[in-house]
């Protein structure tokens, strides 16, 4: 059995928050375990924040379209936007940040892609026809009530 659902919102921080919460509520309702929903929420928030802060930076915010496909053992989330492409049309590596220096040199950002890589089983990025298409996959086990 495969469940699919979708949502769209304007790429602002507040709309992003509502959109992320809507997807997370759906996944909870479909029986995804709480710990897994937490991880999906972290990844989705980072992916959507990147769109808001980078893809549409300096432009009127456009739309973010999210499609979810939940099969028995896998959740796939597609995030699409019409903003600027990722640098070199490539997924960032998402290397861990160096925390060894003094407190005043600690990084305050650059954790997003690292978290996305850590918590997904597979990521795919494609730039096509003026759109960014990001595909995020998670191995999951749904508990049926």
């Amino acid at each position, binding site marked *: 059995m495969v469940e699919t659902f979708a949502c769209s919102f304007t790429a602002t921080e507040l709309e992003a928050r509502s959109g992320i919460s809507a997807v997370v509520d759906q996944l909870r309702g479909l029986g995804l375990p709480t710990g897994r929903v*937490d991880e999906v929420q972290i990844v989705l928030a980072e992916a959507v924040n990147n769109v808001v802060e980078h893809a549409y930076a300096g432009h009127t915010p456009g739309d973010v379209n999210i499609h979810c496909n939940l099969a028995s053992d896998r959740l796939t989330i597609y995030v699409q936007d019409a903003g600027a492409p990722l640098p070199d049309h490539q997924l960032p590596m998402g290397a861990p940040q160096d925390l060894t220096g003094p407190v005043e040199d600690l990084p305050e950002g650059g954790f997003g892609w690292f978290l996305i890589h850590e918590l997904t089983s597979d990521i795919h990025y494609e730039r096509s026809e003026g759109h960014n298409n990001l595909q995020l996959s998670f191995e999951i086990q749904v508990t049926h009530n």
Partner: protein
Amino acid sequence: MSLTSSNIDGAQIVAVNSERIDAAMAIQFKEDMRVQTETGPARVILDLSQVKFIDSSGLGAIVAAMKQLGGARRLDLAGLTPVVEKVFRLTRMDTVFQLYATLDEATNATAETGT
């Protein structure tokens, strides 16, 4: 954003009265922390027990809040819910901050090392 501040056993406790510290909240959080901790004890404990979600923007804002304290003061974190704890652990920020499961544990640690 809503922060409330109190003093217990010589430490300042700042409670975050919000369910999320996310991108929409991060700048306000950093500014509110600056106001709350402009002066005060050397040890500040951030009570995160009401925070059910944090993203990397929120994490960065907490790092910024610690930097704002300067070298002579420190920021400890208490009451981390599962998602918040996960973000700190994954990013290795659990090696930078002292984390306490509950506010009680954090304040007891003050009493032990305080005087």
